[in-house]
């Protein structure tokens, strides 16, 4: 314990970060050993469990010691950093370090906790799968990437981890690659994310160009200074903010780029729970929170608009689906829209708080859905029914999480959703009519949320079983799957809107809001810089939420329980609406017709250039090379060999001729000798006259 007391926060951070990576490496390198094949889950689960403990103790240290005053520990200030790019001069030097503040520790706890529970759940869910150890390796790698994303303080490194998280998502969605759907879905997810990342990257470049640094802390002061002195490059800043937001738009499945999320349900359910409910999609929200001071009012308005649209569009699609996971996917999409909405209207604490609560109850919902799928071996709602008796634990935890999602009072989701509506109303009060839209649509969306979730429960757990064969074989899931469900349900209920005893009674939303720079918030609200709602507003919103619940429940019972009118009547009467929603607003088709075909067209253009231009050049070079080689061959044969041959020809000729001197005739030798003597004499005669 002495060691832990003296360990610096950066030590915790690095340990938390690197443990899952080591687990991944272990599983990856010992993939073929017997130990990993039989017990491939043990090392990753252990690693993530230790990371969870470390996160909790770090949370304890940070919040306990510093509470609401806002704690910021940046390793760059304290001297631990890593020169990512260092060209020796001051021109380009990117330092990456660890940033630990209230937001970070909260995210760490969320990520490690949900990841740990999903790891445990996967032991049961993926049991018997042929690539069992690989799944855990990927889960560990994903945990590492997400933790890295949360811990870094440098935009570029954050982008790297952003991409890495997307890549892990690709690996995990396409885990069962022998089937038809998963590979297509994983490629789609990755492509759409990449699309947003282009905007993100351009935004980062503009940021660097404007400020010369990518460090989050330095940018905060630089932006503050920038606006304080009135250097109005406001438009460039707005543009940068918009581009930066493209990343979260894709990653957190906001309206135009949400198309990958429903298809991503082709992956295993633990993946859906971890990545597409609790963590990866939350990365976008986290990033908006981290860079919050950066966004100018127009950008925030854009964020709020996109969030609102997403919330309502996704909720409406969720009404008509017959696949349990797809309904939950659209629900996630809708809730992410809520989070963006909250951030856009200035509710920094509210949005992030909703992120936190949503992680828990959505993960619970997904894992519960996985339990149901595990029991009846189908994802189709039309073949389920009456499972509440067969799957008691699953049913109860699912119910708790649904109540949390719907915003029933005293559940965690209620606190966060009410906070969002409070902020939306505050925003609406300070502007034109259009500013009321987020609040109105948020309330309407809450009605829809309640409706589709109750529909889900009705079709799955209540009523009579529609597929008796599946019903007969259904059984409750093993403990490794139900215990995480119980834990998550508990967390969904307990909520942390209540004062946390062991952190000195602070409320979590206040803790989250503590380091929030209220600069632009004050600009938004003008003179009403109050972003803690007054008590009359809280009471009003509480009443509104009760009204929402009542309306939703009434609609639901009317349609589904009393069947007056029956769902089929609604579908027939509004068949155009039903078709529109079932076809997902035909967004995919629009993309196919425009972007995909455009892309293919550009590809074919490039293919022409490639075949006639590049290949031609390459072949030409090849032919030229051949020709030159032939020339060289000729040269080699004629000249070089010729020179060599010359020598032996000379030598042979000379020797043939000189041999004739040796006639064997002594008289000839005598003649030569005398002749030689005469020559020598003559030489000396003429040299020395």
């Amino acid at each position, binding site marked *: 314990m002495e060691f832990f007391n003296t360990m610096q926060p950066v030590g915790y951070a690095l340990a938390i970060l690197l443990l899952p990576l080591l687990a991944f490496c272990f599983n990856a390198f010992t993939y073929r050993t017997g130990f990993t094949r039989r017990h491939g889950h043990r090392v990753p689960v252990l690693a993530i469990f230790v990371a969870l403990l470390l996160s909790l103790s770090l949370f304890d240290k940070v919040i306990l010691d510093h509470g609401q005053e806002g704690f910021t520990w940046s390793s760059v200030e304290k001297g631990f950093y890593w020169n990512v790019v260092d060209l020796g001069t001051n021109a380009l030097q990117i330092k990456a370090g660890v940033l630990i503040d209230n937001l970070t520790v909260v995210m760490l706890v969320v990520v490690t906790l949900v990841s740990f529970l999903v790891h445990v759940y996967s032991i049961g869910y993926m049991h018997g799968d042929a690539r069992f150890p690989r799944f855990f390796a990927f889960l560990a790698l994903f945990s590492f990437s997400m933790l890295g994303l949360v811990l870094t303080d440098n935009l570029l490194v954050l982008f790297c981890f952003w991409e890495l998280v997307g890549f892990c998502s690709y690996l995990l969605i396409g885990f069962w690659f022998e089937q038809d759907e998963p590979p297509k879905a994983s490629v789609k997810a990755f492509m759409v994310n990449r699309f947003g990342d282009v905007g993100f990257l351009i935004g980062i470049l503009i940021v660097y160009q404007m400020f010369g640094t990518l460090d989050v802390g330095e940018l905060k002061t630089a932006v503050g200074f920038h606006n304080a002195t009135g250097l109005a490059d406001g438009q460039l800043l707005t543009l940068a903010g918009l581009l930066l937001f493209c990343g979260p738009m894709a990653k957190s499945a906001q309206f135009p780029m949400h198309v990958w999320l429903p298809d991503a349900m082709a992956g295993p359910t633990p993946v859906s729970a971890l990545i597409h409910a609790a963590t990866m999609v939350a990365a976008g929200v986290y990033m908006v929170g981290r860079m919050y001071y950066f966004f100018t009012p127009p950008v925030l308005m854009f964020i709020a608009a996109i969030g609102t649209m997403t919330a309502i569009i996704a909720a409406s699609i969720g009404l008509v689906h017959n696949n349990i996971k797809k309904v939950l996917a659209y629900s996630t999409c809708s809730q992410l829209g809520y989070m963006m909405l909250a951030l856009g209207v200035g509710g920094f604490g509210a949005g992030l708080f909703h992120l936190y609560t949503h992680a828990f109850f959505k993960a619970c919902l997904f894992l519960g859905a996985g339990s149901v799928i595990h029991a009846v071996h189908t994802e189709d709602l039309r073949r389920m029914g009456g499972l509440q008796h067969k799957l008691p634990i699953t049913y109860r935890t699912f119910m708790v999480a649904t109540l949390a999602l719907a915003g029933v009072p005293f559940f965690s989701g209620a606190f966060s959703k009410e906070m969002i509506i409070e902020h939306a109303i505050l925003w609406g009060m300070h502007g034109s009519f259009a500013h009321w839209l987020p609040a109105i649509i948020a309330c309407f969306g809450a009605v829809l949320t309640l409706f589709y979730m109750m529909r889900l429960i009705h079709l799955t757990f209540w009523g009579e079983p529609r597929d008796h064969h599946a019903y007969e074989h259904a059984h409750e899931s093993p403990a490794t799957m139900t215990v995480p469900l119980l834990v998550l349900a508990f967390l969904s209920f307990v909520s942390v809107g209540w004062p946390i005893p062991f952190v000195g009674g602070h409320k979590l939303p206040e803790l989250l809001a503590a380091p929030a720079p209220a600069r632009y918030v004050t600009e938004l609200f003008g003179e009403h810089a109050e972003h803690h709602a007054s008590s009359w507003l809280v009471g009003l919103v509480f009443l509104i939420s009760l009204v929402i619940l009542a309306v939703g429940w009434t609609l639901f019972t009317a349609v589904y329980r009393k069947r007056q009118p029956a769902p089929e009547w609604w579908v027939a009467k509004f068949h155009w609406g039903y078709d529109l929603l079932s076809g997902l607003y035909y967004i995919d088709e629009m993309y196919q017709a425009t972007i995909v075909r455009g892309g293919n067209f550009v590809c074919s253009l490039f293919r022409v250039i490639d075949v006639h231009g590049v290949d031609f050049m390459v072949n030409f070079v090849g032919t030229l090379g051949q020709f030159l080689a032939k020339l060289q061959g000729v040269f080699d044969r004629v000249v070089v060999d010729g020179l060599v041959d010359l020598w032996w020809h000379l030598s042979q000729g000379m020797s043939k001729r000189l041999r004739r001197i040796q*006639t064997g*005739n*002594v*008289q000839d030798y*005598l003649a030569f000798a005398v002749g030689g003597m005469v020559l020598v004499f003559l030489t000396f005669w003429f040299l020395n006259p």
Partner: protein
Amino acid sequence: MSISHYVFISTALFVLGVFTMVARRNAIYVLMGAELIVNAAALNFVAFWRHKGAEMTQMSGQMFTIFIIILAAAEAAVALGIILQIYHHFPNIDVTGPKSLSQ
């Protein structure tokens, strides 16, 4: 009578001797040529002795000539021995017979 007269004669004798040695096929004729060469050399010695212009009390030139004659005789004896051996191996004493030194 300058020395050049004697030297001319000895040179002429020498050349004739060389020519005889080179251009004759019979071994005895070749021997004769050798004698001529030797005697030319002896004549040369005597000529230079006579025209030295210094004391002529030392009979060096004539002494040398006596030696040369002795040597010539010895040489002739040896040469005749070689010719006898040639005649053992060849049907005649033609000097172009023994050609083992050629290729």
